[in-house]
């Protein structure tokens, strides 16, 4: 079956004075309408860079992009700038992390949203205004006709993100890329924004790529989860599989570092030791091996010398892992679980 969005072997490399930065190196995933893919990883793991490549936002930079991005039967990477521009904002829209800096401070919010509508639809200013007010109402902004003329600095953080969502959805796009949409918001507002996105997704049957480093967001929103490390997918599969039966030490680390409100107050979070590798000069073999406490369990120094393939694990069900460990399930049960707060053990 053909997928609505199919990213195949996407590579985004940046030429810099110090060498080639492999921000995204051979990324593949698929997504269907009405589904949500959660991409999770540390800063600099290539989450945002790969999504910007789908939007064609790297044009004019030193980025070298290869691979293919099949979107509704068309390879986006082969489109011209003009063709891409017609899709951008119309078929593929983006929601950004910090709505205050993502909105232009000098133009009213309504004007900025109307601009997104008018560039793809030949309508009068007045028609655009009506549409924008309708949209603002839909995303839950009170008194939308008055707020239309408000400036970004007059909106609260949550309202701004709602306005960004209105801007992204005004042309009824089939794919929305949400780049850490809730990171800049406080927790209660986060929940509201996620609810809003979910409801709108149902209404418009939108495909969503949710980029985040918050596993809670992934658990709530996503159908599939993709864990990225150093520009590559290290674990990919249905979200219930990935979060409950993680098979890659990096994912274990991410799950262990989630704070648990019900845990013993003396319990400490378990951080992943070390720092993410430089994308300029990646370690040979598995990029995670310098930080991996389990690499010694792999015979023959394989972690250090050979990059593991992204392969389906023993549990099947489309759960792919990039790891040399022979029996990760057993290690997770016996060694990782005891480290993680008791709550998560009980859940299992």
């Amino acid at each position, binding site marked *: 079956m053909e997928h609505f969005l199919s990213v195949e072997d996407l590579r985004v490399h940046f030429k810099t004075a110090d060498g080639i930065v492999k921000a995204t190196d051979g990324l593949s995933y698929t997504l269907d309408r009405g589904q949500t893919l959660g991409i999770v990883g540390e800063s600099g793991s290539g989450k945002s860079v790969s999504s910007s490549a789908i*939007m064609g*936002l790297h044009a*004019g930079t030193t980025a070298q992009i290869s691979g293919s991005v099949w979107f509704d039967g068309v390879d986006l990477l082969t489109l011209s700038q003009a063709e891409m*521009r*017609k*899709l*951008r*904002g*119309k078929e593929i*829209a*983006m929601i*950004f992390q*910090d709505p205050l*800096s*993502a*909105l*232009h*401070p*000098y*133009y*009213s919010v309504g004007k*900025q949203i109307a*601009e*997104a509508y008018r*560039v*793809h639809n030949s309508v009068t200013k007045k028609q655009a205004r009506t549409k924008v007010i309708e949209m603002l109402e839909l995303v839950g902004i009170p008194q939308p006709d008055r707020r239309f003329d408000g*400036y970004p*600095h007059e909106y609260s953080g949550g309202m701004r993100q709602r306005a*960004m969502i209105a*801007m992204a959805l005004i042309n009824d796009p089939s794919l929305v890329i949400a780049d850490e949409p809730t990171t800049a918001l406080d927790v209660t507002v986060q929940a509201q924004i996620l609810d809003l996105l979910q409801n709108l997704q149902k209404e418009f049957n939108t495909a969503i790529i949710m980029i985040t480093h918050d596993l809670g967001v992934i658990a709530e929103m996503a159908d599939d989860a993709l864990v990225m490390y150093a520009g590559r997918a290290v674990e990919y599969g249905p979200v219930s599989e990935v979060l409950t039966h993680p098979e890659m030490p990096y994912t274990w680390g991410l799950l262990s570092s989630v704070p648990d409100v019900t845990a013993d107050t003396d319990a400490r979070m378990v951080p992943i030791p070390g720092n993410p590798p430089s994308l300029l000069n990646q370690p040979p073999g598995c990029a995670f091996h310098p930080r991996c406490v389990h690499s010694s369990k792999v015979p023959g120094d394989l972690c250090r010398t050979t990059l593991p393939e992204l392969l389906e694990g023993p549990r099947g069900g489309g759960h792919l892992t990039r790891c040399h460990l022979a029996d990760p399930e057993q290690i997770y049960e016996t060694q990782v679980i005891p480290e993680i707060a008791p709550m998560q053990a009980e859940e299992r």
Partner: protein
Amino acid sequence: MWAYAARRIVIGVMLLLALSLVTFVLFFASPADQARHACGKQCTDEQIAVTEKALGYDKPVLVQWGTFVKGMVTGREFPADPELKKTHPEFITTCDRPCLGYSKTNGVTVNSLIGEAAPISISLAVVAVVIWLVFGVILGIIAAVTKGTIMDRGIVGLTLIIYAFPTFFIGVFFLKFVVVKWGLLSYPQYLSIAEGGVGGWLTNLFLPAFTLALVYLASYVRMTRAFVLESLGEDYIRTARSKGLNSRTVLFKHALRAALTPLVTMTGIDFAGLLGGAIITEQVFAYNGIGKLTVDSANAWDLPTIIGIVVLAGSFVILANIIVDICYALIDPRVRLG
């Protein structure tokens, strides 16, 4: 906003008073004897004393300053001698408010000196500011969008080289080659619009204004380039592009709006500074503007004229600042004056 403007104007007036007081004090603190200078080398001590009294220099500095301030408000008569007015009214020069003083050296009021010189300096400043803004902003934008290419380096490098040359060199260079050797333009002589029409006014102003503009061009090119690049890297530019806008709209509507705002401040202050006279350029082209008047008065120890020019130039700068602040509030909705 009106309350804000009113408050700023009050503060501005107080600043001007302080400015004139400081100028007064500085002059009296200088080793030169005003009266001796005005009287001439051959004067006896008695004659100097008489001159001192006639010019009002015998009174304390603060009293003289008070008279000056009062003259600004009510106008003055020179010499302020009721007896003389009765007997010889033809010797009395009336100076209407705001009276900036009387230049003994030139035998006329400072107001009329400045009244003759100011149109020249203002014309020069206006034409120069238009030239450097148009070229500076256009070249700056071109350099920004072609960042790192030969074009960018060429523009930035060339304007820097020009910047490195002193104004008198560029001025004399233009006079010698453009005017004398190649005869492309006639020797510039200031013509008011009334005398020469807009065309004559402009052709005569072009060379000196261009010379003056070259001084500012380099910094405006570099600033525009930096502001545009900074603005192009902002998140809202990415938003604008992700909406599907074409690069022209992104640059001109989204990037420039934010990038050019700081230029308003710079332009306002630079322009106001120039209204107080472009000393070197006016000297080179023998334009009798405020700049040349300043130099001549300083050389002649013409205190009243210098104080008048200082107060005038100061008020231009203060006024420009108020206007810039108000413009800012109009451009940037985040700025609320209060």
